[in-house]
């Protein structure tokens, strides 16, 4: 496996412009002769499919939901960053770049991050032109709020539904192209494999989720925009359908998987109230703008929050990190919560929770202002927990939320398989070991609107049309494999549901490869996962047939892939004998309990090459160099 990041030469400010000038173009009349497959209709896939359609390419777009508008991006709450500097508080492209590299704990590629910061402003312009109803000030101009990991206000938002509004913008642009017939939409269709022939991605094999029909789709280039894999933990803030299948199947066909152990545990999830809980609901990070996080000073203090006097409260984030306070980045906030709970100060069910308190903010700003800022989040919390956050503090606990790891891509967003591009959360590119709030929406739209449409043109102009059509033997072989796997899943005839395996895997991953990781725990997980996988294939129960809508079958396929992927994730965590960002190896911490990065040994992207199920994958390294942001210890004190 060759890793050539293809980072353009020259000063970082000029790389993208220069690269764009040097890229080959596809003549407008020839564009319609190229067929591009886009899998996924979230912010990344939706924006890419729409933009490619506008350019004149022939696009086939896929999603497993019944409508492209329901991709998981719809659930994003808090906002999207851009370096507009509208509030005049000292923001700039450089500062957004700097914050993102530092926030990612120096494990992202500088050139990609700089480009992200550069195009961030175009995204806001684009969205406003589409009719995205961002929050506005009384003078009619756009409003901004602050988010964790930054000391400027650069986050644009639409109430607590920013993802919904941005996705509807992209979805509407996509709908326009579907109407214009440049994009053919295939909803309720799941990618089950990628076809690679003679070293080039040729297309995909999919299953129609209503009829069960398996079919092949050939194209000149394939784009995966299939989101992240947080559901490997079973409980996460992600939608229930989020999965690793598309990226894992591509990995099995030769795409390198980078930094799978870099997962983000979000500090403000609602702690699960019991075993029946099927997903964790997120409370937006924006709440930390006005909410104060605390625990009782006395361990095991069971009193209600209101009964605990001020002097007996520990506002531990403000205490430990005076300059960022409650706005420290997510990895820092999550770890600090875990530390307090581990040492007996936790509140709520099982002592796994901390208070997020708005009483001071309500006193200072009034209930109406707080309601205007967070009303829908407060209602959501009230509804789920049956406690009114205007009266009593929320109880929150960290929850799996986002995955920085993903398929390795070069500067052009192409994976190690020529012709296979990966965008949005599915790739590994911009967030290093920790993502800052409001940066995923930015990255998804940057990739889809402003990066991929250029770079894919360069690829197509160089590679030309693919002559392998959907009836080629290469497709037939993959179709057969897909069909056999489905038959196998239906034929096990065991007793345990796919969900029960998923739950067991999730608990194991959360315990051993969650917020705190040790060599010992990871080795235990590495021993347990193959056994669980073996049990799955011996005892899974999938009723029904393959030629109808069969949700248990869909679930079983996804769990089977998680059971393979989890092993690589643990291996990656074991190999990375340092702490950085969301990856906290307990053996490597400073005296104050902060992450201890080991740059001399681990300043690289770890890229895994598939060698067979249960076989140890090969590790390749992309060294990271920092020429613009000085490689330093992150401090939010």
């Amino acid at each position, binding site marked *: 496996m060759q890793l050539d990041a293809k980072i353009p030469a020259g000063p970082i400010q000029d790389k993208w412009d220069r690269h764009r000038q040097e890229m080959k173009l596809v003549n407008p009349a020839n564009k319609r002769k190229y067929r591009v497959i886009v899998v996924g209709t979230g912010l990344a896939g939706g924006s890419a499919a729409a933009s490619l359609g506008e350019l004149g390419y022939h696009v086939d777009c896929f999603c497993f*939901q019944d409508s492209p508008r329901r991709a998981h991006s719809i659930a994003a709450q808090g906002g999207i960053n851009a370096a507009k500097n509208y509030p005049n508080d000292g923001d700039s492209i450089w500062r957004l770049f700097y914050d993102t590299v530092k926030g990612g704990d120096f494990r992202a590629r500088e050139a990609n991050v700089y480009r992200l910061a550069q195009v961030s402003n175009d995204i806001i312009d684009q969205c406003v032109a589409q009719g995205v109803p961002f929050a506005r000030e009384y003078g009619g101009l756009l409003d901004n709020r602050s988010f964790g990991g930054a000391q400027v206000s650069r986050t644009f938002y639409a109430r607590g539904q920013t993802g919904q509004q941005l996705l509807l913008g992209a979805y509407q642009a996509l709908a326009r192209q579907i109407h214009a017939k440049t994009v053919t939409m295939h909803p309720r269709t799941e990618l089950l494999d990628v076809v690679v022939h003679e070293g080039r991605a040729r297309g995909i094999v999919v299953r129609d989720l209503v009829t069960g029909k398996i079919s092949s789709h050939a194209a000149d280039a394939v784009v995966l925009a299939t989101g992240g894999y947080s559901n490997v933990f079973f409980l996460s803030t992600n939608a229930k359908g989020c999965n690793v299948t598309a990226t894992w199947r591509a990995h099995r066909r030769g795409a390198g998987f980078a930094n799978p152990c870099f997962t983000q545990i979000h500090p403000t999830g609602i702690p699960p109230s019991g075993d029946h809980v099927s997903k964790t609901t997120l409370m937006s990070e924006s709440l930390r703008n006005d909410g104060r996080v605390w625990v009782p000073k006395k361990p095991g203090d069971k009193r209600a929050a209101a009964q605990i006097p001020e002097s007996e409260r520990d506002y531990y984030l403000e205490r430990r990190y005076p300059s960022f306070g409650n706005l420290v980045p997510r990895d820092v906030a999550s770890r600090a919560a875990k530390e307090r709970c581990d040492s007996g100060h936790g509140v709520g069910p099982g002592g796994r929770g901390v208070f997020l308190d708005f009483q001071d903010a309500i006193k200072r700003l009034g209930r109406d202002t707080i309601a205007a800022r967070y009303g829908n989040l407060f209602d959501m919390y009230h509804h789920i927990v049956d406690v009114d956050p205007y009266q009593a503090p929320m109880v929150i606990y960290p929850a799996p939320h986002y995955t920085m790891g993903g398929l390795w891509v070069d500067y052009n967003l192409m994976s190690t398989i020529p012709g296979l591009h990966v965008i949005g959360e599915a790739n590994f590119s911009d967030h290093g070991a920790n993502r800052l709030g409001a940066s995923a929406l930015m990255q998804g739209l940057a990739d889809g609107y402003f990066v991929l449409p250029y770079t894919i043109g360069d690829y197509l102009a160089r590679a030309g049309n693919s002559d392998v059509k959907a009836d080629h033997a290469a497709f037939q072989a993959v179709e057969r494999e897909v069909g056999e796997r489905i038959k196998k899943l239906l034929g096990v005839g065991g007793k345990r549901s796919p969900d029960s395996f998923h739950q067991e895997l999730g608990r194991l991953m959360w315990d051993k490869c969650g917020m705190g990781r040790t060599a010992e725990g990871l080795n235990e997980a590495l021993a347990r996962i193959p056994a669980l996988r073996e049990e799955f294939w011996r005892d899974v129960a999938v009723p029904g047939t393959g030629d109808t809508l069969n949700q248990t079958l869909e679930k079983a396929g996804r769990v089977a892939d998680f059971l393979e992927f989890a092993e690589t994730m643990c291996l990656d965590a074991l190999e990375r004998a340092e702490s950085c960002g969301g990856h906290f190896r307990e053996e490597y911490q400073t005296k104050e309990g902060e992450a201890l990065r080991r740059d001399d040994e681990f300043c690289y992207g770890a890229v895994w090459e598939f060698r067979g199920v249960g076989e140890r994958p090969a590790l390749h390294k992309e060294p990271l160099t920092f020429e613009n942001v000085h490689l330093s210890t992150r401090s939010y004190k």
Partner: protein
Amino acid sequence: MRFTLKVWRQAGPDAPGAMQSYEVDGITPETSFLEMIDLLNERLIAEGKDPIAFEHDCREGICGMCSMVIDGVPHSPERAVTTCQVHMRSFRDGDEIHVEPFRARAFPVLRDLVVDRGALDRIIEAGGYVSVKTGGTPDANLIPVAHADAERAMDAASCIGCGACVAACPNASAMLFTAAKVAHLAHLPQGQVERAQRVRAMVEQMDAEGFGNCTNHYECMAACPKEIDVEFIALMNRDYLKASLAADDA
């Protein structure tokens, strides 16, 4: 808690359907409605039976995927929630609960509680957008938008496209859904240029899909999990009338 569930089961689009009865027991009040169905499905799978097919994804009231009629009301008799936001504490121990799919001529049943709502996408495809291409757009702050207009646009844009309005309407009309998109864009300066042709194209598509007419029952607003205002329907009707008159003139 224990409940008797009467659930609509239908093996496929052309198969006959019927209500089937299930007993569930040992449910805690903080369990959500969908989690209760999950538990029932786990049991059915263990017994080698087909679990109940139903749609869901985000499970937090924003994706618009979940779509059950609970005790005769789309989503649930509770106000302003989606099915996935309903908790068992809203029911009484021992209740008999009826669960059916969203029904409408334009929403054919695919299996059990899963229906095809593709018609709603086609209404948007007909014109529910601003025709701007990627790139080349002016600075976002070039055109100020009055705070009240932006807020009103956001009220309309909050629609999650679940189709509860259609399922609640005695005429299976999609007026509230369509009006929400029309009103979202009509409240913004960016939406003005195509305002007339948008409303015409969307209303025509709505009719072509076989949705019924609006006869002012307002069941749609009562069932809407996002409490989208029926006033938007009045706005759409005005716009449509104006647009049709202008088209006749032309």
